């Protein structure tokens, strides 16, 4: 009697364990399937970038070049070749002009954001000052407004300053975006008060505390806004489209789509080279990026700072 009870219990445990295992594998399967869908564009672009001109025309000429009547899907190129990349490298100087335009525009914005947004986020996280509530509200409002709404204001200033159609027209407004401040504020607000108190007792001034404690401890958050900023401005379309007219100043995000129509053989390789810097930065900084996003998603912060 006693023994059979024990057996029963053991069998139950086994069944529970089996069920758990099954569930685990089901969940893994679902998540990995979604992952495959998410990563499919990158995979397919890579595959097509390794095709020769003939094969690209054969498989997707129907859509991209009005030749052939059917599109085909291939998961591996039949004749893999790097010719598209070589062609891109050797005979498309415009592409590289656009590449450098993107680089200059993005690094300009990031450098500026580092100098402007980091101290501003520190001010919102660690200081009390008159007008703070209303300013925070204003910054949030500026953050949620789409570019097209603030575009008119920007245009009026840039036009008056004679900056239209220069690189500064894209870079300057980008520097003062309030989104990084919003994201970084929470990282700074999460720094334990004891550390700052201790530094104050040791006689450190507010600038020293900011440079010596705030910046080193807020590094994950700072990295994360820089990575997010890179992804955002590497991908910027609205700003250069409205503020730049000169072809030679256009960034990749605008040049690439034009190129697809002219030269479909190199288009996929060009797409891959375009996304390479962004994807590489993403992979290098993924941990920081996650930490930074997580800090902005956790409790206490934006709403609490309004309550003060």
């Amino acid at each position, binding site marked *: 009697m006693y023994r059979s009870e024990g057996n029963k219990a053991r069998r139950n445990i086994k069944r529970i364990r089996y069920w758990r295992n099954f*569930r*685990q594998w089901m969940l893994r399967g679902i998540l*990995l399937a979604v992952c495959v*869908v*998410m990563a499919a*564009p*990158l995979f*397919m*672009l890579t595959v097509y970038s390794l095709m020769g001109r003939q094969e690209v025309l054969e498989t*997707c000429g129907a*859509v991209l070049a009005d030749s052939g*009547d*059917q*599109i085909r899907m291939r998961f591996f190129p039949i004749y893999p070749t790097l010719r598209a990349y070589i062609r891109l490298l050797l005979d498309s100087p415009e592409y590289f002009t656009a590449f450098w335009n993107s680089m200059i525009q993005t690094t300009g914005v990031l450098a500026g954001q580092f100098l*402007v947004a980091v101290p501003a986020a520190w*001010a919102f*996280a660690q200081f*009390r*000052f008159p007008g703070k509530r209303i*300013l925070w509200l204003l*910054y949030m*409002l500026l953050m949620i*407004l789409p*570019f*097209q*709404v603030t*575009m*008119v*204001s920007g*245009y009026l*200033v840039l036009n008056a300053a004679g900056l239209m159609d220069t690189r500064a027209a894209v870079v300057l*407004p980008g520097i003062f975006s309030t989104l990084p401040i919003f994201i970084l504020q929470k990282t700074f607000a*999460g720094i334990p*008060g004891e550390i*700052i108190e201790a530094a104050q007792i040791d006689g450190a001034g507010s600038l020293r*505390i*900011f440079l010596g404690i705030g910046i080193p401890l807020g590094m994950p958050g700072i990295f994360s806004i820089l990575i997010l900023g890179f992804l955002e401005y590497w*991908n910027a*379309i609205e700003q250069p489209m409205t503020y730049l007219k000169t072809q030679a100043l256009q960034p*990749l995000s*605008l040049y*690439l789509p034009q190129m*697809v129509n002219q030269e479909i053989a190199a*288009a996929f390789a060009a*797409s891959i080279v375009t*996304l390479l810097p962004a*994807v590489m930065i*993403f992979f290098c900084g*993924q941990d920081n*990026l*996650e930490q930074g*996003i*997580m*800090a902005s*998603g*956790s*409790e*206490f912060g*934006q709403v609490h700072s309004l309550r*003060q």
Partner: protein
Amino acid sequence: MRRQQRKILRRKWTPILQSRDLKGYLFLAPSLLGTGGFVLIPFLDVLRRSFLQAVGNGFVGLENYKMVLSNTAFRLAATNTVRFMAICLPMLMLLSLFLAVLVREVTGINRWVKTGFLLPMAIPAASVVVFFQLIFDEKGWLGRIIEIFGGAGRDWLASDSAFWVLAACYIWKNLGYDMILWLAGLGAIPEEQYEAAKVQGAGGWACFRYITLPQLKETIFVTGLLSFVNAFRVFREAYLLAGDYPHESIYMLQHLFNNWFVNLDIQKMTAAAVMLVILAGGILSIVLGALTRT
């Protein structure tokens, strides 16, 4: 490491440098100068111009506003934008929350899953647009697949389904970001609370309703806000896929402003911008008010 981090994150928000002086402004100054110069002060000019005539500088009162509100293009664009927000925002948030819950249950592959989900964020619109063309063109993959099953393909971007193409783009791009936000919010809720509730006989729904939801309030706000901000950015995909004048189901306020800008229709732009700022400010303060009161 993770525990320590969680401890830091859970700490209540306390400004330490509490002197009620203007020192904060020293740190804020560069940013304030820039936003003042590029947005706030010119906005006053925008406000002024919204009451003026296009030619000459006569004061016309609310004439420009009336013109915008009765403009069919504006009505169409506003309706589409609201529709996109009302449908896609909840869809994205629920889907990402669901996935975050799943990811928390799973062991062993979390890192892979997070990488896979976040990856679309890094892919520029310009690169991925070719891929979307291959799928959604009249002769594209989607059409082919449907043909195989006996249906007929169509140009998805030139019909009402363009809306759903855009919705798919938006969700594809932002799913990972939102999921990470949810993971942060869910991770900050102490496990003990669930255990205590379960001991007292609370079911799954009760746990969610009385433990998870109240403590997730701010995460919901932040996720909603950032998803809202990112929703305006689908304009990039929409523009690259379908140009200045896409199918009317995806003709958004962004397209409209862009076309007004090209035609230098400053009067309409200024009036519409003022209205949108007031609307956004109103909604934001209502939401924040509700959040701070409770």
